[in-house]
């Protein structure tokens, strides 16, 4: 016993001093390229939503602009500030903070690292008080939702004949992850879109309460199908994968979210309500490279910036009547011109859920 004791203590001591010696003199490497980086929120990469989208923007910048990129995934709320400032310290010229949970953290870090730029996705900053090196990036998800709503609203009533998957019930469904702002914006926009073309339609929402449980998404979809819904709009992150699979199994249609999700089930996903995180991320990186980055403000990406919208119909292109496409295009130009203001909350949309 004593022998083991001594040995383990000696070992620990060596380990301790060894790591000290190795760890202490860590200097920062000098880069030739401009470095951009992201700190994800606790959802992490692989969320098939804004974390992944932002990362894709970085990768695009790496390929096209020759940027050096870095990504850190946060585990807890306490990690946000050290991750953001750590990335700045490592020499990142631009640091992305992903998710509304990092709103406070990005401001704090920006104050301490005026040399770096910070951009927060889904973060709304106060232009009056925010430092000049921080930028808020927001999206008009409700616009995408609105367009998707038009497609769904028309198909489920007027054009049920185009596919055997549609029925005469005039019911649409939505599956939500958690009830949080971006989700609500999609929801409100979708509802408004449906109502604009099909005011009698019944729109049912189910909240699963999680963003990462496919089984629950699937179950919710089945319930919606049973209630007569023939198109289901998923706003549920990874839970949504279950929604799409469920729709496929039940022989109804689904509408994807955030990115073009047609590849998951080409026969099922008629379109997706997109949010151009990748593109806008790329744009911001580009502005840094070109030296035109302007902080202290919020950028709202919408149809006008080509950052929201619905994705191509892929295999359904030939099936979907031209009238529907026309309606959508009409709505796009109306929104762009300000003729239509899409509601961004349930209250504004009058959705009594």
């Amino acid at each position, binding site marked *: 016993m004593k022998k083991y004791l001594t040995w383990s203590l000696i070992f620990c001591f060596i380990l301790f001093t060894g790591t000290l010696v190795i760890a202490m003199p860590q200097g920062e490497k000098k880069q030739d390229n401009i470095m951009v980086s992201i700190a994800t929120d606790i959802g992490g990469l*692989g969320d098939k939503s804004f974390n992944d989208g932002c990362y894709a923007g970085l990768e695009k910048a790496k390929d096209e602009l020759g940027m050096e990129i870095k990504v850190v995934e946060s585990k807890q709320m306490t990690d946000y500030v050290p991750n953001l400032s750590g990335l700045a310290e490592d020499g990142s010229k631009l640091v992305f903070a992903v998710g509304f949970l990092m709103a406070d953290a990005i401001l704090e870090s920006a104050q301490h690292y005026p040399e770096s730029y910070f951009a927060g996705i889904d973060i709304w900053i106060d232009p009056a008080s925010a430092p000049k090196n921080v930028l808020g990036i927001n999206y008009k998800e409700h616009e995408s939702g609105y367009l998707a709503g038009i497609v769904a609203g028309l198909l489920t009533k007027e054009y049920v004949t185009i596919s055997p998957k549609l029925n005469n019930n005039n019911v649409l469904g939505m599956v939500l992850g958690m009830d949080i702002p971006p989700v609500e914006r999609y929801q409100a926009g979708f509802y408004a879109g449906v109502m604009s073309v099909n005011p009698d339609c019944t729109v049912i*929402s189910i909240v699963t309460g999680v963003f990462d449980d496919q*089984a629950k998404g699937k179950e919710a979809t089945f319930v919606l199908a049973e209630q007569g819904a023939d198109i289901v709009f998923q706003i549920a992150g990874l839970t949504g994968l279950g929604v799409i699979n469920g729709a496929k199994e039940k022989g109804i249609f689904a509408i994807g979210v955030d990115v073009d999700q047609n590849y998951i089930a080409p026969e099922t996903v008629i379109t997706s309500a997109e949010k151009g995180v990748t593109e806008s991320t790329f744009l911001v990186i580009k502005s840094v490279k070109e030296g035109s980055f302007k902080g202290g403000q919020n950028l709202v990406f919408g149809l006008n910036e080509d950052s929201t919208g619905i994705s191509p119909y892929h295999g359904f292109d030939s099936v979907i009547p031209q009238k529907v496409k026309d309606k959508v295009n009409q709505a796009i130009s109306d929104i762009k011109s300000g003729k239509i203001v899409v509601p961004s909350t349930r209250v504004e949309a009058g959705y009594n859920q």
Partner: protein
Amino acid sequence: MNDFFTLFNVELLHSTIRLSTPITLAAVGATICERAGIVNIAMEGLMLIGAFTAVFFAYITGNPWIGLLAAVIAGGIFSLLHAYATITLHLDHVVSGAVLNILALGLTNYLLILAFGHPGTSEPVPVSLAEYQFAVPFLSQIPVIGPVFFNQRPIVYMSFLLIIFFTLFLYRTKTGLHVRASGEHPLAMETIGVSVYRIRYLAVIISGLTSGLAGAFLSIENSNVFTSGMTGGRGFIALAANISGGWSAVGSFLASLFFGFAEAFQYKMQAARLLDLPSELFVMFPYIATVIAVAGLVRKSRPPKAVGLDFRIEKQAD
């Protein structure tokens, strides 16, 4: 009120079966395990391991059956840790289970990155077991029961068979008798020359196998990807099902059905919008139902006498 009664239909039963299958599988494993005297709260972790392995092997081979097999084997192997800790090392069962849950979560997250290059979720498997749905001839024609029980996917059928198998196993076979005896009076088993250690190892591994199967159900039958932490507390609900089911395979099955029903019903209520309440209240409902079931039913049955107790042959002599 009429609207309310329309909620109860065949779809609800279907939904109940689907939602209860993973719970049933884990719960029946827990039944065997607890009957042999070992408390297993590591099922949450075992299911995760199973779910990950299933997706991984189904993804690289393109064959979901290989994924299924791998999941079951991986569940069995990981459960050996619990067996080793509780039986050979005499560790407190609950403590060991809690630790293994933590370990399994870290392990699957790390392996997910190694295998698929990114965290969060895996690539979808090319073919999922859902495509092997088949209706049993004749039986599936029975109204109500037929489509619900006899038009299902492979793992659901397996869960039905396993219920029958484990009921027979416990009450009709020699090993089953030994399992029951080990949970009641382990020393007595040892004195007639049956190794309690061996029986308990077997029981823990059985629970590992069924939990692995439950994991495979979640990832490659009911879905087609693995998501980090995708079990979402089902392991604990399975434990609750086993207890409220009175430590029997059939009872566990019925209790699991009840929990599955609670969840299915919750969705229906949300969709039907008969009550204007915050959605979270509906989401909570299955958990409340679990508490009520455990609190209400637990007194009706007697747990195995030696469950959760450490067993060593060479206790200090008096």
